[in-house]
């Protein structure tokens, strides 16, 4: 469906201004943007009549009024003053984006001592065009639509990470994405992460919001793992319930590489997470783990596609959700095993607990298997807290609230336990516990009000 009139007026105005701004960017970037823009005009914003968007209505949350030219903002505060992420023992190297812009203007792109290149995506396209051009759009091209088009056309900036061959990055790389809008806002952010041959890296992405302004973030991330690379990414979604987001992660994996994506959704009004994995090389392994805790009117939709294109790959998906009040959860997990992908192992599970009967979840596993030698399993459950277990705990003197907490927490722990960096696991354990207790899940010394 074409872009509607009201969106067209807004977007075309912004795009013309944006093009002027965009002078000085690499020619291949400008070409890529133009293609994206044309795609946006052609396809428009995904709507509810599309099967893949049946449960999540973007038109309810993406207001044309959000669309404006996003110049690099000048901030009146010092980041260090308001944001102190005191992740205990989590000795990370942190990098921040503000409203889609890389925040460190003085030092937009760094080469760390171990050779890792990290910083502004925009800057990387200028400094390392041979890398960016090689990868950019290669993973997303399998599923271009109006959203990916919008992202290409309007992406202000984002993160670029390049892990060189054989490089083992000791400390996690932490990316803090902040929405600090003083007006309602549409943010398009583009990330490009490359794990070179036999490299190992852990990336943590934390989403926060500083204000209670309405916003829509359209974030696209491409992850490439070369042969033998190990790439773990944990995304923590913890923005105010006035924020909405589409987060699309496209993973393209070469042989014997492992990519693990953990998605922890704590706060945020409307969240749609798309993860597309293409297993392109034999013996590649994909792990997708998700935990979503929703209450009030939160809407969390996880949509995954794992594409087994070649033989001997393994994929694991584990998504769990606890929904309270009027919260709405969606899980759609598509596993495609192509004709040649013999000896595929593909596992998928989605388990949900509804705390009130006003909460709702739709769970849809979809298997498309064209090979014959395949081990595949999938299962979806929706239930309440186990009343027998609850009684057992209470019969030992544990009050109802605490007993429920223990059960919810143990349910969530199965996902949190998949996080392999011990300090990060501890930190997320703490955040999940606070979230379940209805406390603010933020770091102790942080001034950010996420929820």
């Amino acid at each position, binding site marked *: 469906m074409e872009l509607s009139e009201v969106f067209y007026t807004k977007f075309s105005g912004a795009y013309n201004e944006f093009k002027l701004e965009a002078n000085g960017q690499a020619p291949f970037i400008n070409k890529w943007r133009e293609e994206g823009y044309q795609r946006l005009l052609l396809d428009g914003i995904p709507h509810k009549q599309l099967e893949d968007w049946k449960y999540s209505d973007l038109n309810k949350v993406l207001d044309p009024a959000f669309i404006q030219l996003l110049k690099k903002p000048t901030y009146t505060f010092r980041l260090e003053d308001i944001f102190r992420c005191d992740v205990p023992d989590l000795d990370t190297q942190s990098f921040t984006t503000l409203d889609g812009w890389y925040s460190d203007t003085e030092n937009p792109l760094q080469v760390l001592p171990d050779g890792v290149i990290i910083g502004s995506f925009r800057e990387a396209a200028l400094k390392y065009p041979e890398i960016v051009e090689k990868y950019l759009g290669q993973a997303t091209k399998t599923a271009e639509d109006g959203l990916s088009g919008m992202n290409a056309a309007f992406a202000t900036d984002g993160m670029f990470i390049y892990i060189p061959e054989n490089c083992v990055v000791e400390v996690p790389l932490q990316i803090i994405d902040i929405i600090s809008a003083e007006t309602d806002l549409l943010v398009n952010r583009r990330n490009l992460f490359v794990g070179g041959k036999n490299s190992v890296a852990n990336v943590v992405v934390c989403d926060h919001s500083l204000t209670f302004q309405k916003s829509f973030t359209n974030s696209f991330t491409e992850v490439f793992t070369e042969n033998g690379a190990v790439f773990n990414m944990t995304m923590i979604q913890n923005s105010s319930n006035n924020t909405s987001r589409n987060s699309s992660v496209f993973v393209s994996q070469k042989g014997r590489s492992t990519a693990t994506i953990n998605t922890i959704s704590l706060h945020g009004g409307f969240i749609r997470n798309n993860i597309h994995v293409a297993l392109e090389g034999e013996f590649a392994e994909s792990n997708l783990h998700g935990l979503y805790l929703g209450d009030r009117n939160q809407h969390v939709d996880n949509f995954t596609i794992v594409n087994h294109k070649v033989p001997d790959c393994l994929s694991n998906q584990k998504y769990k959700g606890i929904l309270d009040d009027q919260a709405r959860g969606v899980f759609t997990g598509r596993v495609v095993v192509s004709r040649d992908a013999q000896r595929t192992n593909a596992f998928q599970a989605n388990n949900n607990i509804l705390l009130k009967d006003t909460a709702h979840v739709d769970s849809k596993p979809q298997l498309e298997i064209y090979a014959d030698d395949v081990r595949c399993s999938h299962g979806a459950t929706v239930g309440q807290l186990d009343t027998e277990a609850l*009684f057992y705990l*209470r019969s030992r*003197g*544990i009050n109802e609230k605490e007993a429920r907490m223990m059960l919810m927490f143990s349910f969530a722990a199965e996902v949190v336990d998949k996080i392999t960096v011990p300090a990060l696991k501890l930190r997320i354990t703490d955040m999940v516990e606070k979230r379940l207790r209805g406390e603010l899940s933020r770091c102790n010394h942080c001034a950010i009000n996420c929820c």
Partner: protein
Amino acid sequence: MLKIKDLRVSINNKEILKGISLNVNKGEVHAIMGPNGSGKSTLASVLAGRDIYEITAGTVEYNGKDLLDQAPDVRAKEGIFLGFQYPVEIPGVNMMTFMRTAVNEIRTHRGLEPLSAKAFLALSEERKTLVEIGSRFDGRSVNEGFSGGEKKRNEIYQMAMLEPTLAILDETDSGLDIDALKVVANGVNKLRKPENATIVITHYQRLLDFIIPDFVHVLYNGKIVKSGGKELALELEIRGYDWIKKEQGEN
């Protein structure tokens, strides 16, 4: 200590307990026996506060207070302990975290300081020796993957930790080999105090060789149809329940 008067209990409109009366005084051990499905576990669950049952008539008084309007955790804090016939597996809830939370909630209720991690461990070690479980449960989830016998030992370990006033043990002997039975019975006996009472539900005389009851009751079809001393258990062992069923049929 416990006064049950004409207790009637239904589930899904089916009456299971049809007027039970029973008095338990401190220091006493009562054994409840009876054929399968007669309502023994139902009685135990109702006393512990399981809320799936409908109480249609009768009263239960515990230490002078109405028991039936108390939440299960309050009952536990007030000293009631149920050793489950089928202990529930709770994946993801660490056994020791669970026990420490329980012990400290109960201590707080009794006006005692919560135990530090260290003090808790020391107490736990001491009580574990009572049921000879060593470190088998450490680092594991509550009952998850425990063998039948281990689950029963775990119930007694928990009882030892919580120091109840009234312990209700529902077939704690079933599934135990003879050595384990002795260990469990020994544990129960060591925990007996003049101010406490115990209700043991069992099918077998052999447990009662170790835990000697003051009274034996036969529960049949939702009613206590016979009460006596420990010799009643022996008689049941020899003659089975047929004569009781017959007697009841005649009435």
